[in-house]
């Protein structure tokens, strides 16, 4: 296959604008799948993707397209739209020369539309704007075209109108791909350089590398080296995604495909690494590669009493095979015992990992409150990061605490700007810019502490904008802030799992909320139990659980001793499931309630 007959492109868009559905139509039109047999969004093959109806992992597929007496090879990558997985988008873009930028004709340009368009632009790719869902009665194609022109600086004339659902306009998309996206460059005669843009663990085949051949060619039997890790392997098999793995004799310059080379462990492969032949390794320069994904959200996972620690560790090890993008390190807590501190790409990612652990691995977990990482500038010594509030040193040892800050972009209705402004300022945001993308829709940008948006910010945004507002954020460095460690004490013993790092102005409010929840959930004891919230040595809120005056069942139940014994057994089991801290028995659900932030507003 000649390089000039190849086209490599990704489909990018805001979440739910129809990327995977458009991919279905492209697969059907090129005969890669049989429309009568395929399900919707065939590329969303993970069970969680199917259940949630969203794409989580980018997926590649090779299409054969015959047009004007020529055969083309199209390599399509379907990407996720959710902000947590934007790393998947950036990885995919490196393997492409162009993108289909989908915009929902009813919803219009949204936060991730803009963010993803910028990513494509920065990567120097050709952008084909595609207006999708024109079949919808609510579609407003002319207005949305104007939004595209205005906010993305793309020409109106270039916009294709399609319905991924009905297939209307899709043949024109294929024509535009070959006409407007340039073929890959690269030198077929040069030594091999292939970009590893993804890697997936397959139970039967081991690690499957997803590569884009930049220069040269690669076939089975070749001895290859991963340049960053220095490891060498013998290639067993190469091929294309059709979308199942289809073996080929070789991968040519410009092509996208897979490589299987007896790699056992995903940890041995760094996505973004350059693959070359062992003999050429000294002669070629590595490709630019990627920054590793940033873990923005952290939390502790602890086994429930019913689940053991070993089972949790094994489940995490297993899960890491298929999702290398979360981190986990052992930690321990007085209140919760032994567990793991985990890092995630965002809250949805956290939720998905937790769901997979609980469901696929049948574990019962206690999750601590999600937090961000902090940069501590100690009174003496170099700055360092902590990812758990419990690791915050005493205030007198700290010169400065810095927290992660993000640039948040929001697209909202013009009449909702006031409400959003108030929300962002209440969340310690500072205004950056405001831009009309049409007469009725506005794009706002704020600099905000990341910690402020991981706690129910999205829900507030949705409620203020009646569901229409969208947001995207990018990491923008660490900034000093007046942060304190809020400690929660039960009967004067600190409950480490409940400590929080909060802005000084919110310490009292948050402390009081947590104490109120604990008060509801901790059963009364034979003695009075004091609940306190403290910053440093200073108590800033307190609650008391009064002593119990009696615990005795009056009834005789007509001699039904079994029933009475069962009641006591149940009570005893409840007691067994509690954690004793400072002589006070705290039920699991008290931790869970205190750790929950929803319903706070």
């Amino acid at each position, binding site marked *: 296959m000649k390089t000039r007959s190849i086209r490599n492109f990704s489909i990018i868009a805001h979440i739910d604008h129809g990327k995977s559905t458009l991919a279905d139509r492209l697969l059907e039109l090129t005969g890669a799948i049989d429309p009568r047999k395929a399900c919707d969004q065939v590329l969303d093959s993970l069970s969680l993707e199917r259940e949630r109806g969203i794409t989580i992992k980018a997926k590649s597929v090779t299409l054969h397209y015959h047009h004007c007496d020529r055969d083309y090879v199209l390599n399509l990558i379907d990407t996720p739209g959710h902000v947590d997985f934007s790393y998947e988008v950036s990885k995919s873009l490196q393997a492409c020369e162009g993108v289909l930028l989908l915009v929902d004709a009813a919803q219009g340009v949204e936060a991730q539309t803009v963010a993803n368009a910028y990513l494509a632009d920065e990567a120097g790719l050709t952008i084909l704007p595609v207006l999708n869902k024109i079949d919808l009665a609510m579609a407003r194609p002319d207005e949305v075209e104007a939004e595209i022109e205005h906010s993305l600086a793309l020409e109106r004339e270039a916009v294709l109108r399609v319905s991924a659902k009905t297939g209307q306009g899709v043949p024109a998309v294929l024509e535009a791909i070959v006409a407007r996206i340039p073929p890959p460059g690269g030198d077929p005669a040069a030594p091999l350089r292939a970009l590893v843009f993804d890697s997936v663990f397959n139970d039967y085949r081991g690690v499957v590398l997803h590569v884009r051949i930049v220069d040269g060619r690669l076939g089975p039997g070749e001895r290859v080296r991963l340049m960053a890790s220095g490891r060498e392997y013998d290639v067993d098999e190469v091929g294309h995604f059709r979308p199942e793995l289809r073996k080929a004799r070789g991968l040519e310059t410009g092509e996208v495909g897979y490589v299987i080379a007896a790699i056992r462990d995903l940890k041995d492969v760094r996505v973004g690494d350059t693959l070359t032949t062992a003999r050429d390794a000294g002669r070629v320069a590595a490709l630019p590669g990627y920054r590793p994904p940033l873990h923005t959200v952290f939390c502790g996972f602890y086994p429930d009493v019913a689940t053991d620690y070993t089972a949790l560790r094994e489940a995490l090890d297993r899960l890491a095979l298929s999702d290398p993008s979360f981190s986990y390190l052992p930690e321990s807590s007085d209140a919760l015992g032994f567990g793991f501190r985990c890092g995630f790409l965002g809250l949805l990612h956290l939720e998905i990992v937790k769901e997979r652990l609980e469901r696929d691995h049948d574990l019962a977990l206690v999750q601590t409150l999600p937090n961000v990482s902090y940069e501590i500038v100690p009174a003496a010594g170099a700055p360092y990061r902590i990812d758990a509030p419990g690791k915050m040193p005493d205030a007198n040892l700290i010169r400065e605490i810095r927290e992660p800050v993000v640039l948040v972009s929001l697209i909202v209705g013009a009449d909702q700007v006031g409400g959003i402004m108030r929300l962002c300022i209440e969340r310690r945001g500072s205004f950056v810019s405001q831009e009309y993308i049409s007469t009725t829709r506005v794009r706002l940008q704020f600099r905000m502490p990341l910690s402020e948006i991981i706690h129910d910010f999205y829900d507030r945004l949705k409620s203020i904008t009646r569901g229409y507002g969208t947001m995207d954020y990018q990491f923008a460095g660490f900034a000093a802030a007046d942060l304190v460690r809020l400690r929660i004490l039960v009967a004067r013993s600190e409950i480490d799992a409940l400590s929080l790092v909060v802005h000084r102005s919110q310490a009292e409010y948050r402390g009081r909320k947590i104490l109120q929840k604990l008060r509801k959930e901790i059963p*009364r004891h*034979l003695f009075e139990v004091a609940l306190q919230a403290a910053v440093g040595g200073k108590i800033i809120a307190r609650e008391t659980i*009064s002593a*119990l*005056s*009696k*615990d*005795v*069942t*009056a*009834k*005789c*139940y*007509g*001699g*039904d*001793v*079994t*029933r*009475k*014994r*069962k009641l*006591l*057994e149940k*009570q*005893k089991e409840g*007691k067994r499931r509690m954690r004793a801290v400072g002589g006070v028995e705290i039920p699991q659900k008290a931790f869970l309630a205190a750790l929950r932030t929803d319903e706070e507003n």
Partner: protein
Amino acid sequence: MDSREMTGLYVHLPFCPRRCGYCDFAVVVGREPEAEAYAEALSAEVGWLARTTGRPRLESLYFGGGTPTRTPAAVLRVLAAVRAAFAVADDAEVTVEANPESATEETLDRLRAAGVNRLSLGVQSFDDGCLRRLGRSHDAAAAGAAVQRARERFPEVSVDLMFGVPGTSAKSWRRDLERAVALGPDHVSTYCLTVEEHTPLARAIRRGEAPPSEDALEAAHMALAAAFLPACGYARYEISNYARPGRASRHNLRYWRNQSCLGAGVAAAAFWAGTRWTNTADFDAYLARAAGRPAALFPPGPAADFHEHLPPRAALGESILVGLRLLEGVDLGALSARHGVSAEETFGAAIRAEIEQGLLERRGDRIALTARGLRFANRVLMAFALPGEGVRQSPRAS
């Protein structure tokens, strides 16, 4: 003297005019037309029980409910069946539970004539407001009159009172106790209103329509009864029960001493030869099954829904946890011998922990709840509740 084993028999009569808001007993409303059929089913079950247990001698017979006095003919019918099937000791305690409104002169006379010698009256309160809030069908005047009528006819009369009812005060509870004592019963039971799940009362509390129970108030009322009744000659012999000398309920003592006791009727519990079983709580299922033949060998009986035979350690725990309700406590030496396992080995550590907490005390070979322990009995008893391996039976087709 008859050398046959002594036991007791409980007979359940589930009929009530309407369900009280706090009640979670096995009760049926509006099924009185079927009382005769029910009495037949009971008689069949009683006959079966007697045959399979080798006709033991009954030292106590207890008709509970529901409201047995609502269907006196059924009580009499079953009483006759019991006498025909079992040997009833001459001095047996024969108790019938009664509600004031159905304890008419005629009914009481008929019961007395049939040999009933103890009447347990569900008075609950002598305060009209309190009775209304409980959803009872009688008022204070009716309650007083009923106790009077019972006293005139029966050698032993017991009165049930309830405390911890929302809207009551220490003052009203004290008045209830005074009224009860003034009527001169032999026995007084004081039960704290328990909010059982799935009752109208529980729902009302959840919706905020009724105030939630207050344990401080309940504890105060419990303490009031514990001080007042003994001063009037009623000794406290169990957490909730008080009696004049020699008038403790022999039937209930069998339960607390974990002695055998048979049961007949809807939801009735039985304990015989180390096996416990509980009958179905479903009225129709009971009617269909009571007269049938049990699928398994004895026990359990034909209408049982659940049965278990506890391993020795769990059985010992059970003996301790029921026995500690009695103020006399339990004799650990005797119980170790009875169950063939050492109480010290099984529960020594738990017992010492409770003694340290001031909830239990040791008196020679016996242990008993302290005054404080009586208030927190569940905390202590919990330690002795070991899981059994009960079998829940799927209802057999009749």
